[in-house]
Every structure is written in structure tokens, then in C-alpha cells.
């Protein structure tokens, strides 16, 4: 097991090099020149050249690439070009707000989606199952923007159930007061596709021979579904969950903007608007790294839930 983990971690290095090259090409080679934005309303070529020098983008590409590799290795991406804030500080201060929405959302959506998927899989083919699937399809067809606008207007403004927007200081104040509506909206949006997906995973298992055997042995339907079917369907469910994990690092862009949540998603949008490459590069590298680690974690979990899986 340890050898496997070491090997997988070792494989991260060439993958990261590929990611670094891609990011460098996208931002430093074809990504435009931020000096023109930072120069203000009236600037002359000399001032533009000075800004390029200060940012280090007047160096040859190979030198810029080496600097970037050093930044990735040391996890020191320098400072934001537009606000001068240290990039690591941006992550340290913005990530908690994003996680405060992302983590409860992931927990809630997983529990609720699996429960509903099990229920509809249990009554597969029935009117309830079909009605649930039609509802999910309809819910999936509506843009998240519509949910945000309608929920914010109706639940927060009109009925006063939640704050319209904002963020406070205390952990509990934020979690239960300000994050509640954003979580609710994100939950409504994510439930429909997850229920459909998990239902499919479960139905794939329901028709397997081992399920028939379990039923033939006289096991109760609850035991069949919750123990046998759910355990075997858990591998694709884990895969789906692990795919979503790195997303926690980038937050929920639209929700954070609408509800003025000072999270990383909002910061990423700002960084893109301002061509703030150090922040964009750092986010991209962190997400790539998180994806690789999440994949590794998923493989280890496969082994944990299904002893037949061999890690080679």
C-alpha cells in the first residue's frame, strides 16, 4: 500500500510539470499584457515598460518559466499584481468562507441525494420513480442564475427568511445566518443531477446476480438495498464525490458574488477581470494538485470499501 502511495505521489511530478507548462503557455505567452491595465488612464510607453519590469514580465520566457516553477515548488506565488496582497494570504483569508458553504453542501447533497436515489431505486419503474426523474430533469434544466435570483428575491427579500446578502465575523453567525441561503440554493441545484446519477449507479447493481442471490437467500429488501447494493454502488459514488472535492478550492462563483461571500470564487473572478496572473496561476496549480490528490484518495477508498480491488 505504502509503495503504491509513494509511486502515485511520484507520478504527480511529471503531471504537475505538464500542468505548469500549460498554465504558463496560457497566461504568460498568450494571456495578454496586464501592464496596460495597471498603467491607469493615461500612460506612455516608458511607464508601461516600467510596469512590465516591476512585474517581471519583461524577462525572457525561459526565465519566467523558471520563476514559475520555483513558485510552484515553494508554494510562494508572490503578491497579487493589482492589490499587492500576498497570494498565500488571499487563500488563507478567502478559503474559509468558500469551505463554509462548500463542505456543508457536499455533506448535505451526498446524504440527501443517496437517500432519495435509494428510495426511487427501491420503487423503480413506479409512478413515484418516474415523477421523481421528471422533476429532476426539469430542475436540472433551469439555470443556477434563475435559482439564485428567485430564491434571493423570494426567500430573503420578500419573506425575510434569510439575509439578502452579506457576511459577518463569527463562525456560527456565518454558517447559520449568512451561509444558509447560499447552501440551500446550491443544494437545490446539485440535488437533481446527483439523484439521477446515483439512481443509475444503484440500478446498475440492482440487476446483478449477487442481488438475485441475496434475495433468493431470503434477505430483507432493506438489507439487500442498504448493505449489498449500496456497498457495491459506492465505488462510482466515491468517484463522483472525489471529482467534486477540488471544486471546494474554487468556491461557487455565482453564489459568492450574489451573496457577497468573501470566498475564493469571488476572488478568482476578480483576478480574471484584473488579469491578476499570480492569483489565477496559484488557483489553477492548487486545483490541479487537489485533483491529483483526490484521485489518489479515491483509489484508496475503493480498496477500503471493496477488498477485491487491488492497488498496483
Amino acid at each position, binding site marked *: 500500500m505504502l509503495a503504491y502511495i509513494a509511486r502515485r505521489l511520484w507520478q504527480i511530478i511529471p503531471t504537475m510539470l505538464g500542468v505548469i507548462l500549460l498554465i504558463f503557455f496560457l497566461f504568460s505567452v498568450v494571456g*495578454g499584457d*496586464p501592464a*496596460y*491595465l*495597471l*498603467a*491607469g*488612464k*493615461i*500612460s*506612455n*510607453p516608458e*511607464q*508601461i515598460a516600467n*510596469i512590465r*519590469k*516591476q512585474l517581471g514580465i519583461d524577462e525572457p520566457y525561459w526565465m519566467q518559466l523558471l520563476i514559475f516553477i520555483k513558485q510552484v515548488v515553494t508554494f510562494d506565488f508572490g503578491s497579487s499584481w*493589482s*492589490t*499587492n*496582497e500576498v497570494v498565500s494570504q488571499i487563500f488563507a*483569508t478567502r478559503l474559509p468562507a468558500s469551505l463554509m458553504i462548500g463542505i*456543508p453542501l457536499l*455533506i448535505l447533497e451526498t446524504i440527501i441525494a443517496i437517500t432519495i436515489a435509494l428510495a426511487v431505486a427501491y420503487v423503480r419503474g413506479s409512478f413515484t420513480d418516474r415523477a421523481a426523474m421528471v422533476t429532476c430533469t426539469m430542475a436540472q434544466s433551469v439555470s443556477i442564475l434563475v435559482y439564485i*435570483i428567485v430564491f*434571493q*428575491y423570494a426567500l*430573503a*427579500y420578500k*419573506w*425575510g*427568511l*434569510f*439575509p*439578502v*446578502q*452579506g*457576511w*459577518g*465575523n*463569527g463562525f*456560527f*453567525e456565518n*454558517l*447559520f*445566518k*449568512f451561509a*444558509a441561503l447560499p*447552501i*440551500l440554493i446550491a443544494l437545490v441545484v446539485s440535488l437533481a443531477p446527483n439523484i439521477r446519477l446515483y439512481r443509475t449507479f444503484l440500478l446498475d447493481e440492482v440487476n446483478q446476480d449477487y442481488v438475485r442471490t441475496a434475495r433468493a437467500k431470503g434477505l430483507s429488501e432493506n438489507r439487500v438495498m442498504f448493505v449489498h447494493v449500496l456497498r457495491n454502488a459506492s465505488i462510482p459514488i466515491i468517484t463522483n464525490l472525489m471529482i467534486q472535492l477540488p471544486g471546494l478550492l474554487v468556491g461557487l462563483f455565482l453564489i459568492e*458574488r*450574489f*451573496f*457577497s461571500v*468573501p470566498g475564493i470564487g*469571488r*476572488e478568482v473572478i*476578480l483576478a480574471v477581470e*484584473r*488579469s491578476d496572473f499570480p492569483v489565477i496561476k496559484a488557483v489553477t496549480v492548487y486545483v490541479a494538485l487537489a485533483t491529483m490528490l483526490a484521485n489518489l484518495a479515491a483509489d484508496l477508498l475503493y480498496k477500503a470499501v471493496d477488498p477485491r480491488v487491488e492497488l498496483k
Partner: protein
Amino acid sequence: MANWPLKRELRQRLATCLIGVVGLSGLGGLSGCWDASKKDGVTGVVATSPVKVTDGKKVVRLNFPVAESGFDPVTAHDLYSSIIIDGIFDTVLTYDYLAQPAKLVPKIATDMPVIEDGGKSWTIKLKKGVYFAPHEVFGTAKRELTSKDVAYSFKRHYDDSLKPVWRFLTDGKIVGLNAWYEAGKKAGKLDWDAPVAGLELVDSHTIKILLTKPDFNFGYVLAHVAMSVVAREVVEKYPNDVLSHPVGSSAYYLKEWVRGQRIILEKNPNWRGGTWDFKPSGKDPYDDVIVKAMQGKPLALIDRVEVYPIEEEQSRWLAFKNKQLDVLNMPSSFIKQALPNGKLSPELVAEGVRVQRLLDTEYTYTYFQWSDPVWGGSELHKVALRRAVAMAIDRDEEIEVIRKGNAVRAEFLVPPGVAGHKADFSSNVKYNPSLANALLDKFGYKKAADGFRNAPDGKPFAFRYTSTPTTTEREFDELYKKNMDAIGIRYEAEKEKFADSIKREKRCQIMIRGAAWIADYPDGDNFMQLLYSKNIGESNNGCYKSAAFDALYEKSSQLPDGPDRDKLYMEMQKQFEADTPWALGVTRYRNQMIHPWVVGYKKHPILLSEWMYFDVNMEKGK
């Protein structure tokens, strides 16, 4: 009404308890419910009482539609950071709160500068008793602002390591300043203690600024937020991070800053004070109401200013309606809802909300690239082409559909509210597609088989409009396409990132693009310079070159505002219309929505922060 916030609070608690109990552990849910119920909204963003009082302090809550970047006067290039800077730092001059058009008045100067030597010498006497806000670098003693600080603050714009963005305000204008910079560059380090001839420190509270040539508009530079006065000790303490540690001498200091979330300012404990003393402009009846309410009161009645960046328009609008914000610059998406037919909706009237509608000191324009082989140059057929296009663009439809009635057509090169504006002027270039077609026919732009016109040499050409891929720009694409179809000109939409457009623009590589210019200072010169050929690569984004216009501009820039300069401006306008290097666009309205408990507030067209001039009425809010 009085009970409504309580009900709302109760419902919010119930909802959050429900979410807590259902979503997370029961214990967590209950503790969250308890925790939320303990909070009174003072530090959070949800307000339960319209007027906020924190520890007996009067609070005003405002918002920015874009997050701020930082508060160093030399490096801040966004409006919203500049607003905060204006509230924290002092400038030598400022603007009269009510005067129309905007009028310069002393801020830390005892009086207006003494201008001598035909506009080349500006002597400024500073007030005594102007102190910076307390900071550890000053120790326990109060640190007084002196003429040395003014000179130092001017010099900071030449520190390349800061990436200064406002150097153009003084570049080449002050005797010896550029030479001092060049000497520093050569030596590899700026010598901050070296004297500059043009920044003569007469005594601790008098500075004489010597200009390289007469400039009667230099007073506007002295009032510009970028020329705010900083203390050298603070800069040296935070050499590359003044933007996070702004320490000024104006009415407010930065109490708390959570980037992109909230900016909290409180009254500077060393604030010098002052008395509210302004006269009605005579052009706005509401000035009388303001004067009656505020005359003789001390300056800076508000103790605490809270600013929340809220990017989304719906969120801002609902926050204002929910009384979380006291003043709001009306988001354009909700204009029709809040101001049907340009008047406040009955719902808002019933709540006592007031609207202040003012034209911004700006305009938009569509420029044609002067160096483009098809569109640029002074040959008659090219002038005819530009004129025809300018006559084909339907600005009225733009105002009605895209601007939602929230703008007026720009007629003159100097917009309203700016010295040099001519209110009764009506441009000769009016919307007239039939005349535009006739003009194109006359100058040899014949229609080809595809129904679109070719150039007089028979080659096909297009109106290639460069813009960013946004919803509003797509609306412009639709409008311009329709307008160009009406005169048989092919339309091409070119989409790229804003930074790329600016880069190409400075190299005169964009064929046609829309731009906007908002006054840095309320003088016509700030707009006329946009067409001066020596500003190509800087602010003349269409790269227009006209010897006649240049000669007129050079003459006008030596004159103060007055009839002589107005005559020159009129000639420049004629030259502009003769050449048509741009199609002038619109001047947009700013609609400030103001809750009834905000007293004496009026958005100034130039002044960035008005916080020290208005008040909140506790009784009305309760």
C-alpha cells in the same frame, strides 16, 4: 413599519435554526440558532434598524459595485479605492460641496493659491493644526502636516518601484522634478532629500510650486485625489505596502479592512474640525434644503463609514430596499422599476426615498482609427465615410434600449458640468441615415452585388467594431449592425479582452472602438487633450492627427477658463466635426437613491467622498 424588522429577524432565526437542525447535527443547529440570536447585526451586514448606531456612533452604510484594490494615492487606479483615499487623505484644494459648475476651494490651504508669473508660479499657504491620524510611527505626539509632506507626496509619483499611475498629472510640468527623477534613475536610487527647484519650501507651512509653462488649470491637479498628502514616515515603514496602511489627515481613518468584504472608516481622532458653510448653487432647489439642515454644523458629523463591495445589481438593489444600505447608485438593471418614466416609483416615494439624478461629467464616443487605410485620414471621401457612419448611429435607440433612458446625447466635446461646456450647442452631425446614404453615394462608395458598399477603389471594407464579450457589448453589436445595414456597410464584431484592446489601442491598431472618458478634473482641457496628436499612444486612442486642432489646443491650454478659451473651444469643435474622428455618444445619468434619514447628502460630480458634509437623522430612522 417599526415592527417589521423584528418580524424579519424572527423569521431569519427560524429559518437558520431549521437549516441548522435539518442540515447539520442537532446540537450544531441549536448552537447556531442561539449564536445567531445573540448577534445584533452590528458587525454583520444585516441591519435590523434603518439607522445604525454602534456604541453611540452615527454610521452610514454604503456600497461599491466593484471590490477595491488598495489605498495608496500614487498607485490606486480604480475609482472605488480612490473614494476611500479621498476620505482618508487631504489634498491642498477640494471642491465646494454645492457650487455648480464645480468650484475649487481650499482644503488644507488657508486660501486659494496665489498665482503669479502669468500662471507659472503657485504659492500655497497651508493651514496650521492639520494632523495625521495617530500611528505608531509618529509615537505619542501628534504629527502635523507641513509643506515638506506636500513636496514629498508630489515626488512619490516618480518612484518607479510603486508602478505609479498618475504621473501624467505633473509630468514635465514642475520645474526640476523630471530632472530630479532622471538623476535618481541614473544613480539607481531617488534622493528624497534633494531639493527640487519647482517645489520650493518657503517655510514649514508655505510651498511655492514653479511650473515649466503657464497652467491656470493646475489648481485641479492640487485637488486631485492622487495628489493626496502622505507622511514620509508611514511610507518608509511600509515601503511597498502603503496601500494597506493609509494614514492621512482628513476626517476619517481606516479602522478595519477585510479585503473585498468591508471597509470600515472612523473619525480621525486628530481631525481638525471645521464648520459646514456652503451656499446654494441657485441651480438646484434642493440645495436650499441642504443648507437649511446643515449650515453652521460641525464638519464630519458621521462617526463611522461602512462600505461593502456588492458586485451583483440585484443584491445591491435588494440590500438598499432592505435598508442595509443608506445610499445607492442605482443599478441600471432596475432603473425602469425604480424610476418609471424618470420619476421615483410610488413605492419608494411612500418610503420617503429621495433620488438625485445628475449627469456625470463624462461622455462616450466611438472612434475611427486615423491611421487606418480605409477609415482614417483627411481625404474627403474618408471624411465622408466617417461622417456618414456618425449620422447612421442611432443614439436615441441606444439611450432608450441599451441605456434604459438613462443618458442624453453628447453634443459638445466638453460634457455638462465641466468648465468650457456649451449648453446651447447642437451638433451638426445628427442621426440621418438617408443623408448618410446620399453622402456615401456621392463619394463613390458604391453597392456591390451582395448589397454592401465597396470603397471608391472597388475594394470591399467593413465596420470592424472591437469590444469585450459582454452582454451590453452584444447589444451594441446588434444596434450597430442594424445601423450599418441601413447604409449598406458590412459590420464585423471583433471580441477580445480589455487588456488586449488597450495594448492595441496604444499602438493605433484598432479600427473602431467605443470608449468613455470621465473627468479627472472638471475642466474642458481634460477632454480636449483626448484629440491632441502628442497624446497618441497615451490618451488619444483614435490616434487623430490634425495640425489645425493641435494649434488650437496648444493655444487653449495656456488660457484660463473664460470667453477667450470658449472661442477656441468652439473652433476646435468645428474642426472636430469637419474631420469627424469620432462619433460622439452619450452622457450618462447617475441616479443616487437616498433613504430619508440621510440628511444633507448630495452626490458631487467630481468630489469622491462627501461623508464629512452630511448627517444621518437618528429620529427619522427609529
